[in-house]
């Protein structure tokens, strides 16, 4: 559904992405992991046509080069890391924005557009938000609302940039479970940047590890979440553990803990 060949993005003299080649099969969920600045967001934005890139991107068998904004928005729904939520806009109006690529230039939303959005609000348990301004929403509700807007685009590809960074652990799992359910309901292809490596391993079918703008590793979670790979790119203290249930958990060891343990706890030095 998505594939790239030699994708390259430069910002002035800085190379943000270099010869990135990857592919995501239809219906697959691929997680993008990597340290800060590795190029995860840039890759998602390049696929969504929001930054200029060299190389080739195929979306559903077509190169994305000649697509208009509207055509691209019907193929790709992009959820940014920090969506702008106009505080006085109602939840219903916000989800209706997702219908933009389906509405003619001089036209307004049809009854069908409203029905689609009402159903999505219902699906996300957000019907009560249809008439309420966005400033009244909790973080979790805002998260689901942004997902609802993305789904309203009815695009087969969903790009998520750190979809859970603003949520607590329980809400993170809820949000990712929801993405997974929606992926199956709507036959979506999902490519998401995920900071939390444990959750990335639990939810994505495959992981792509980016480092310094290049693909450092890719494959099934167990093949990418390896002590040697992660400590090379995230720092020496990162370890992969396996739980009793056979799940991978990525933790970070504090190198200084032993040293600090020798000092009196309630008399901070300096």
């Amino acid at each position: 559904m998505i594939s790239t060949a030699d994708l390259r993005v430069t910002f002035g003299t800085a190379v943000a992405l270099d010869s990135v080649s990857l592919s995501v099969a239809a219906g697959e969920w691929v997680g993008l992991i990597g340290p800060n600045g590795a190029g995860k967001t840039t890759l998602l934005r390049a696929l969504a046509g929001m930054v200029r890139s060299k190389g080739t991107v195929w979306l559903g068998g077509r190169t994305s080069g000649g697509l208009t904004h509207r055509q691209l928005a019907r193929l790709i729904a992009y959820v940014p890391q920090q969506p702008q939520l106009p505080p006085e806009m109602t939840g219903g109006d916000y989800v209706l924005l997702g219908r933009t690529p389906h509405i003619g230039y001089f036209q307004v939303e049809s009854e069908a557009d409203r029905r689609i959005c009402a159903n999505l609000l219902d699906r996300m348990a957000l019907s009560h938000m249809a008439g309420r301004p966005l400033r009244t929403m909790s973080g979790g509700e805002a998260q689901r609302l942004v997902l609802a807007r993305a789904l309203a685009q009815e695009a087969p590809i969903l790009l998520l940039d750190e979809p859970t960074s603003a949520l607590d652990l329980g809400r993170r799992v809820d949000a990712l479970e929801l993405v997974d359910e929606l992926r199956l309901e709507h036959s979506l292809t999902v490519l998401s940047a995920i900071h939390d490596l444990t959750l990335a391993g639990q939810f994505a079918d495959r992981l792509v590890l980016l480092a310094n703008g290049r693909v450092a590793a890719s494959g099934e979670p167990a093949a990418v979440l390896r002590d040697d790979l992660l400590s090379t790119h995230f720092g020496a203290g990162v370890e992969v553990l396996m739980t009793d249930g056979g799940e991978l958990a990525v933790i970070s060891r504090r190198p200084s803990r032993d040293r600090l343990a020798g000092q009196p706890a309630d008399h901070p030095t300096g």
Partner: protein
Amino acid sequence: MKAVAPGRPPGADGPGSPAPGPGAEAAEPEFAPASDLPAAPAGPAAADRATESGRSVPTSGPQSRPGAISRARVGRAIIVATALLVIAVIAGVAIGPAQVPLGAVADAVLIHLPWHPVVSVSAIDAAIIWQIRLPRVVLGALVGAMLAGGGAAYQGVFRNPLADPYLLGVAAGAGLGATTVIISGASPALLPPAAFIGAIGAVALTYSLGAGAGRRGNEASQGAGPRTTAGTASILLAGVAVAALLTAGQTYLQQSHAQSLQSIYGWILGGLSGADWSQVQLIIPYVLVSAVALLAHRRLLDVLRVGETEAGSLGVNVARLRLIVVIAATLGAAAAVAVSGLIGFVGIIVPHAIRLTAGPSYRVVLPVSMIGGAAFLVLADIAARTVQAPAEVPIGVITAAVGAPFFLFVLRSRRTSGDVA
């Protein structure tokens, strides 16, 4: 560590695609015919909502369709603004230094309508109403609509609450054009076209300089491509520079022709004292084009409220949208300035007052700003010609002296924050 990924079989579902493929949409015209009446028949949910107070947070039931509340709100705000405009127009025609009875006012208007009943009205009353007051009221309404609508559009497209129709150099360019005509001693009939050309030329200069600079800057620093936009900031900054440059030229011309100072200053202060039907005819094509074009973009301006980047990812060509809206708003503002001089505050106060009372959606703000701006300027002009009658107070003084305190009142009494542009 062992390769065990419990629970979730990878690639669980098929490759089905719920959205129409790119081939299907290619056949659909990008520009669909304009068939968008703003207040489409609202459903029963909308009717329920309409009874609620617009100021309170509506607690909608689960049945309410997205957008229903907004549509009810648009209709209500348009009705209120239109009622205000009708009152303003009636007052504007009825009030004046000459005492004309209300019945005679009505008759004087009536005899110019087709199939009017047989009425008799004195020639003097007829001339006062039809030749003096009515064109002045109509011109004031058109100017007010263009300044307020243009201000709202500029604020939306630049996402900047301080934007007004003069932002990109309309005022400075028109001032230079008008000053040139006045000092050259040419016929006053040349004033409107010179001001209009100056205004349009200034904005064209600003836009080409600013958009070009933004594109180069983006390429160098952020690698932004054709799908992203040249920064609005560089366009605004170019506007500041162009306005300063043209104002410098205008001031130089003005000071080196001291004998014309009075008439130049009179033009810059703005006013409707020279209004007649020929001026209405002169600007009405621009007013219509500008109003229709701006109103046609009210939905896209709402999409822009989530930011240029996200609007782009939703399928909006932001650079093209911005160019079209700027052209439309500039046409209207330049036409207004050409016949009325530089009337300040309308373009910034009216749209914000609408936002603060009726909500920030451009489906409300654009049409209601136009109607409300028309009403506001007609009322301000009544004050301008009656406060010190028979002398006239410059209308810009009235719009600022009345508009600014009113605006501050609305600003202080609003309950909610943010979302200003």
